[in-house]
């Protein structure tokens, strides 16, 4: 499979107002990330708040500019593509946000909101445009009468369908879904996840699915990348990472995730403490301060991603191990 989007050595530092020794402190939001997504593949980005997953998603679309590193889209280096050319390419890369209440213009009728990206990219006009809007409404499961109505007339789930229709309007190849189902009630969330799964199959969409919910992630993703303090610490087959995580942080995350299957009885103690400050990331492994198996070397040197099971993990304490029996859960003991 060829990659549709590929980033290498990608970093983003934000300057803050805080100073130390006369120098402005920087937030290391994303540090040295390599990631490629194959055509038609769904990669999920998981991690806790502040881990850099939203920043990485926006960097990949060049909604914000990287501090260093490169982004290639469909074989073209877009890292420093001029604005006019980038605009043309934008048709092919779209984003769906978490909050369908703030991502839609309250003064625009639904039909206008969905037509807008089609018009901006000059893809259709007149009756052809109207037909495309109708087809998109059908596609996301909304009645065509929605065209004449305003966002406030719709529920959260319906608004998220509208936001998806709008993202699909210019017929993109690549979609970043940033916590796209996080604000929805579970019964509605399931409807939207089913819709995304259908779209993905029917349109061969490539997706970066950003989420903090491991259940959702393992349901939709082919591969999962786990971020901690701006770095990918583990990446691999979605089902395997969730069932048989290699990195100690992924293990802690899977254990801590509330689940109807694994109730409190057999739970080990939760991970202590909080992540270190991204203003002052530690020199060694960023997880060492909370890691149950960290040694002195982990605090001194930074582990790099190395092959494990079907993916990669950045940990000194894990060896490249053969794939375990998939039926055996890793945290059963």
């Amino acid at each position, binding site marked *: 499979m060829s990659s549709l989007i590929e980033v290498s050595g990608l970093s983003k530092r934000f300057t803050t107002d805080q100073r130390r020794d006369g120098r402005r402190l920087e937030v290391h939001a994303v540090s040295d990330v390599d990631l490629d997504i194959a055509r038609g593949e769904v990669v999920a980005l998981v991690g806790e*708040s502040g881990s850099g997953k939203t920043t990485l998603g926006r960097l990949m679309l060049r909604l914000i500019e990287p501090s260093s590193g490169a982004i290639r889209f469909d074989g073209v280096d877009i890292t420093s593509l001029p604005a006019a050319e980038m605009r043309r390419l934008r048709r092919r890369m779209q984003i769906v946000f978490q909050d369908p209440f703030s991502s839609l213009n309250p003064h625009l009728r639904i039909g206008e909101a969905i037509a807008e990206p089609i018009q901006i990219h000059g893809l259709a006009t007149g009756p052809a445009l109207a037909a495309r809007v109708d087809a998109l409404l059908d596609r996301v499961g909304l009645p065509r009468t929605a065209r004449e109505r305003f966002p406030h007339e719709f529920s959260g789930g319906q608004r998220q369908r509208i936001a998806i229709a709008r993202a699909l309007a210019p017929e993109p190849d690549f979609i970043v879904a940033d916590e796209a189902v996080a604000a929805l009630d579970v019964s509605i969330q399931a409807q939207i996840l*089913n819709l995304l799964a259908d779209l993905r199959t029917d349109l061969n969409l490539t997706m970066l699915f950003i989420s903090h919910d*491991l259940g959702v992630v393992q349901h939709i993703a082919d591969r999962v990348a786990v971020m901690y303090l701006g770095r990918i610490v583990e990446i691999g087959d979605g089902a395997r990472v969730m069932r048989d995580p290699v990195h100690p942080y992924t293990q802690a995350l899977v254990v801590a995730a*509330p689940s*109807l299957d694994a109730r409190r009885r057999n*739970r080990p103690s939760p991970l202590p403490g909080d992540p270190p400050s991204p203003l002052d990331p530690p020199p060694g492994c960023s997880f060492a301060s909370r890691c149950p198996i960290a040694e002195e070397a982990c605090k001194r040197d930074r582990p790099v991603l190395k092959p494990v099971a079907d993916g990669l993990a950045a940990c000194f304490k894990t060896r490249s191990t053969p794939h375990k029996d998939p039926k055996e859960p890793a945290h059963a003991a």
Partner: protein
Amino acid sequence: MNPLPALAAAASEKATQSGPTLAVSDLRISAKRDRKSVELLRGVSFHVASGETLALVGESGCGKSITSLAVMGLLAPGLSMSGEVALTDAGGRIDLVALSAAERRKLCGRRLGMIFQEPMTSLNPMQRVGDQIAETLTTHGICSRQEAARRAVAMLDRMGIADPGRRALALPHELSGGMRQRVMIAMAMIGEPDLLIADEPTTALDVTVQAQILELIRDLSRERGMATLFISHDLAVVADIADRVAVMYAGEIVETGPIDQVLDAPLHPYTIGLIASRPALSTERRARLSAIFGAVPEPGRRPQGCAFHPRCSLAKPGLCDVGDVPLKRFDGRDVRCLRVGERVQA
């Protein structure tokens, strides 16, 4: 002046007492909208015994938060309410609905503790967190300022906050979200309340922090024999903390029973749907989720008969769409479904 060991002894004595600490019966709340009365809560009854955790679960608009607000006496003005909310303990029985604001303030912190979803809006941004925690003790004259400050630091330590002496001097904005939530729990717990009401206390937190906070609430309620009313939209979180659960839909409890029974063998079609629509780590990848079709009815647009019937695949015309559906005892639970018995026999 009560030293801590005495309080602990009193608490364990409390834990062994029988009888419910909180009893809510036939709670009804309605709002006026366009001169019409809109029912938000239609006769909700439950009880929480000391040492026990009851979870109210449901999706937005089901009435779980308004129930907790009513119990805390924080209902918005303009809502009309009927029913009984009674808090019972060694000191007797108090009708929480009939209390004046001043009487209620006397209970808050000592007999009633509350934790909300967003600690930033519940904490005073200008006051050191240690002082905010200690305030409960000094306001009620439980101990001296110095002793209160000492206990506040001890409480932060109990919350798993590193360097509690220094953190007690911090202002809320200087702490992380997880730490602020722990500060709020410390505030709620330091007065050793009989009843803790926790409304989505971990919803804004990351999973590893959420796991820490849930463990904390669990340990404290067990140690101190506290009755806990836990409100959440997330069945999986509830699975971690509750002894019993009440599932709410459109202003009513539709199923209530011991947590394991309800989760392992749900009876109400809505509970079944809620559990099935949640993607679990064990769900086969890319299998279709069994979503509940449609959406929760808006208040005032409640369908006739069973409120869930338009979304229910088992609804029977002429049966489920006429008349109110009572809660029926079935298989160790109370279930509000006319077809519950039939289905099991079939």
